[in-house]
């Protein structure tokens, strides 16, 4: 399953990470919000595997803990895993969660699906509450915010996207509630950092995939109006396998000397959209798809955007030029900073990761 269409990312070989370079000791208290989620459960697993013995897992009252329980099963010897159910909209719950914590991995967020206020409330208001609670206790050494590639405009001249590329200045116009919420969430973290000297790191994962998360990312295509519309073409997709992503997030909370830094997270040798779709059809399930060339997808986004404007939102601005640039423009990505500063290396090579993912999708009968 090797990708023949995209070469490996060029970066310096990662430096091995020594536990001596970590900012906390194994018995220090660590908080993981969104711990019951797809990535959060793997973050907890990675922390436990790395020998951290005092982890607080924060989950919503309605969250299903099966994934978290599966992740830490058999790893609990001598480890204190505390599951705290609550709502980050409650200041009292935030205070209870952040008491005595040295590192916070903040993964909990609300996508809000299509609702901007929902996404904002469950991402930004919750983050503010958590930050306010955590600054009360003087023991916080690192606040790791897990953001998203959705924040990038991807309109830079170069087709290469890295951490220095501009972030959406008008996320309210993106038509994407997640983009809006994530941009505002990053803003509130940096505001708090300035005001209260919160030592923070922002991690921006690309498209996270793995067993238990069957949907095909919109960067490959979308199912709309009947057939699957393949929009990615030869674009490389910034995939990151969930275990590799969790490893990067964990390191962002531990490695010394990276305060205030931003890290993009994506794996090496990720396949092109076309290659991924072909493998998906071969390994999971065959279905009809129609390729939409970039020129046409851009024109469609442009027309949709204009129609949405002139019809006063009769069609919501779900497709627009901002989204086209962010998701479907031909782009190359870099994970050099992640390797260099955090000493990250993918735990699971892409070929193996894809094999595991497809096998899980096939067994679960999931479909795009």
């Amino acid at each position, binding site marked *: 399953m090797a990708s023949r269409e995209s070469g490996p990312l060029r970066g310096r070989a990662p430096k091995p990470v020594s536990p001596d370079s970590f900012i906390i000791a194994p018995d220090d208290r660590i908080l993981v919000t969104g711990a019951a989620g797809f990535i959060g459960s793997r973050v907890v697993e990675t922390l436990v595997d790395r020998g951290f013995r005092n982890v607080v897992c924060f989950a919503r009252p309605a969250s299903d803990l099966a994934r978290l329980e599966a992740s830490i099963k058999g790893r609990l010897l001598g480890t204190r895993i505390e599951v705290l159910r609550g709502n980050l909209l409650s200041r009292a719950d935030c205070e209870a969660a952040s008491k005595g914590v040295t590192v916070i991995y903040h993964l909990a967020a609300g996508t809000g699906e299509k*609702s901007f*206020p*929902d996404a904002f*409330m469950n991402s930004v*208001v919750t983050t503010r509450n958590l930050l306010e609670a955590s600054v009360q206790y003087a023991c916080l050494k690192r606040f790791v915010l897990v953001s998203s590639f959705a924040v990038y405009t991807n309109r830079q001249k170069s087709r290469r996207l890295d951490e220095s590329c501009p972030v959406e200045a008008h996320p*309210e116009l993106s038509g994407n509630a997640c983009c809006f919420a994530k941009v505002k969430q990053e803003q509130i973290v940096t505001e708090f950092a300035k005001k209260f000297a919160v030592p923070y790191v922002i991690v921006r994962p690309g498209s996270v995939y793995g067993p238990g998360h069957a949907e095909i990312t919109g960067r490959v295509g979308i199912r709309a109006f009947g057939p699957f519309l393949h929009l990615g073409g030869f674009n490389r997709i910034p995939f990151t396998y969930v275990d590799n992503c969790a490893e990067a997030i964990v390191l962002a909370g531990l490695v010394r000397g990276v305060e205030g830094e931003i890290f993009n997270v994506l794996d090496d040798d990720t396949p092109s959209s076309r290659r991924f779709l072909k493998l998906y059809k071969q390994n999971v399930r065959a279905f009809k798809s129609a390729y939409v060339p970039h020129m046409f997808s851009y024109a469609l986004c442009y027309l949709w955007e204009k129609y949405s404007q002139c019809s*006063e*939102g*009769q069609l919501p601005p779900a497709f627009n030029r901002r989204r086209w640039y962010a998701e479907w423009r031909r782009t190359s990505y870099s994970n050099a900073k992640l390797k260099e500063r955090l000493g990250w290396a993918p735990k699971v090579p892409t070929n193996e990761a894809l094999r595991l993912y497809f096998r899980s999708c096939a067994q679960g009968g999931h479909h795009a």
Partner: protein
Amino acid sequence: MLKVAIVGCGKIADAHATQILRVGGCEIVGVCDRESLMARQLYERFPVKRYFTDLAELVSEARPDVVHITTPPESHFDIARFCLEHHCHVYVEKPFTLDVHQAQQLVDLAEEKGLKLTVGHNCQFSHAARRLRALVKDGYLGGRPVHMESHYGYDNAAYARALLGDRQHWVRRLPGKLLQNIISHGIATIAEFLTGDSVQVVAHGFISPLLKRIGEREIVDELRVIISDSEHTTAYFTFSSQMRPSLHEFRIYGPKNGLILDQDHEILLRLRGAKFKSYADYFIPPVMFAKQHLENLVRNARLFLARDFHMDAGMKVLIESFYRSIRENATVPIPYREILLTSQIMDTIFDQLRDQLADQSASSQSRADLVPPIGFKMPYLQ
């Protein structure tokens, strides 16, 4: 220029702001939320003059003519009363208040102050719903309604997950819990066509087997109601979270003809009371129905092409009508009688459900018996 303010900057406030901006001759002078971040995000995304975290400041500094209340229902009454006392017309999102006593107080206050009041029953102002109302008014039914059926389905998995998993969720604090937050659209559709001065209600509600399996003990998500007024107009109301398709449908039958309003697909069908002779009754009506469906398709397509087929089209019409009633001191789009009757029917349903649940837990029976019908006079409607 009518000055408008929105109090409560959550999900539904977006729909209000969008539709207010589509209505001519008004501007949003302020938005308010106790959570400053929420107020600011609405202010940043819409052309709004200022944002506030304090209602008194909003009213005194932005000086709105109309206030839209889009907060959770528990706060509707206090906010609406405050706005009315400060000479603002008020649009309250559904459910109007927690009970009919609060509703009556607001109506009395509005009338005393010479202000206008409405409730967000916008489904009654969709294109198809307005066509139904016009046909009824033109006498298509052939007299007073004989019977109505209102189906209101519920299929919001994300919302349900949040509610079911959270014992502290604000919906659980409402007297009618989930039903209170949802059913007013379906009940109001019936209340509009009830004309008698007293109403009887028989409600039967239960927790669906699906919810019981996951340990839910207080959220009633299946409801069947029989309503009858003193003029012998009757109605069935069905609320279901389990029934598929999840219908939003209203049927009204008169002595001559009937009508079906399918809210989900914006379809209105006329039901002819007269029959055709012999076998013709098997062949002609299907053709007539096909023709009506085609007419609905063409009408919807025309509206879409004319850019007048928005998801919240009913809300825009309701807002426009409400603002017109303010400017021209004309009749409000939703009569106060209908608002109060809807509240009163809902109160009676919740009273009966409470009794049923209490009986169930006392006797530990798996199935509650129907309680005797509770009748009530309509003191609020005289």
